[in-house]
């Protein structure tokens, strides 16, 4: 898409890497231009006017000027700093996971406005006491769906028969649920409980506020997380690196909760 030399856009900062003496290379998600990589000059200096506006996971409005090779940020103003979620390590570890997932999923400069809205909606949920894990599963499923990788969950992917009561399986390679008869054709198929299947269907067909009304117990959460991350791994062809930090923080929180009087 051709863009004017200088343009304004809203964006969420997904990733930042140091560049040169005092610059940063930022990866942004924008509604109208998709994922962009831009350089932010001098933002590592303490007196930088832009630096404070361009921290990770900040919603900003930007003026970007297109250079010969790399676009540069000419102006930035914070719209939403997400202070609440950044003050809570557990919520923050989940937000960082979302940022990595968005970065991994979106190709450069492929606009997908609903995905931008979805990211913001999920970040807002992380600022509330709602079920954060369920919001993460919602984000993952919806993102897969928007990219055309959404799992088929009501009928068998192979024989297209409606799933009957009994035992069910999912296979990331097949792209969804399988009936017991079709299961042997896919080596990566794994059993899925009826509850997990129902939750996934509910998440896939309801808006986020409605989906969050579900009450999901920890064992079911673990099962959902395992199935959805298997789907993601298959689509992205790699493990997300922030998973390790999610686990570290969850373990630390569990320990400090058991030690608390």
């Amino acid at each position, binding site marked *: 898409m051709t863009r004017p030399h200088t343009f304004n856009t809203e964006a969420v900062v997904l990733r930042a890497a140091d560049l040169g003496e005092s610059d940063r290379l930022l990866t942004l998600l924008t509604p109208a231009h998709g994922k962009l990589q831009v350089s932010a000059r001098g933002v590592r200096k303490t007196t930088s006017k832009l630096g404070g506006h361009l921290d990770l996971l900040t919603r900003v409005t930007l003026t970007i000027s297109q250079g010969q090779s790399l676009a540069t940020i000419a102006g930035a103003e914070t719209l939403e700093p997400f202070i609440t979620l950044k003050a809570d390590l557990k919520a923050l570890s989940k937000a960082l*996971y979302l940022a990595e997932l968005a970065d991994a999923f979106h190709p450069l400069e492929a606009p997908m406005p609903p995905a931008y809205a979805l990211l913001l909606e999920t970040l807002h949920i992380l600022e509330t006491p709602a079920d954060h894990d369920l919001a993460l599963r919602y984000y993952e499923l919806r993102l897969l769906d928007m990219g055309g990788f959404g799992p088929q969950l009501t009928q068998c992917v192979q024989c297209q028969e409606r799933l009957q009561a009994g035992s069910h399986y999912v296979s990331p390679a097949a792209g969804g649920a399988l009936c017991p008869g079709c299961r042997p054709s896919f080596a990566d198929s794994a059993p899925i409980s009826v509850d997990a299947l129902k939750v996934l269907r509910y998440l896939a067909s309801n808006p986020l506020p409605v989906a969050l009304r579900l009450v999901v117990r920890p064992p079911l959460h673990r099962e959902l997380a395992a199935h959805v991350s298997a789907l993601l791994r298959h689509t992205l062809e790699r493990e997300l690196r922030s998973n*390790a930090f999610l686990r570290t923080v969850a373990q630390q929180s569990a320990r400090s909760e058991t030690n608390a009087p």
Partner: protein
Amino acid sequence: MTTNDFLPAAAPVARLIQELHKLPGIGAKTAQRLTYYLVRMPEEDAHALADAIIAVKEQIILCSQCQNLTEADPCPICTDPTRDRSIICVIEEPLDVLALERTHCFRGLYHVLHGVISPINGINAEELKIRELLVRLKDGSVQEIVLATNPNLEGEATAMYLHRLLTPFVPKITRLARGLPVGGDLEYADQVTLTRAFQGRQSL
């Protein structure tokens, strides 16, 4: 980029260009310019540069206590009898020691993490020198930990993680103040910085 990309330069020249090009902030053109400067340099200067590079690789080790880069283990700061051993300032990189030492206002000891938790770049707590910090806290002589990681998201995440982890071992854990920089301009300050500056205001 390979040596072939720099042909028709003579092989040793192409090799030097290639090596310099690996350095951060050095592009292909700069690497070529530096190489031709080095070629014309007096021989003793070139040897001094080469020796200095070899010396840092051969003689610099990590201090077994503070994990800073040093020639002697423990490092001069850790062995200095005038320094306050009850307070440890935790920082991200060895360069931060230099910045803090220039202020002459901190007389305690340091601990260098050699990085910051950055999940998106695959850097988790295990990759940092946190275990070494816990070892230093075992004897109970440390009364205060100052968390001096950078005031950005990853630095804050690291500080929050360390705060939770270290609470059982140290009576007092502090974080460097965040607010307006000297020479800054209120008008351009972002909300978070201004909020922090307000929260941390002090009576005159």
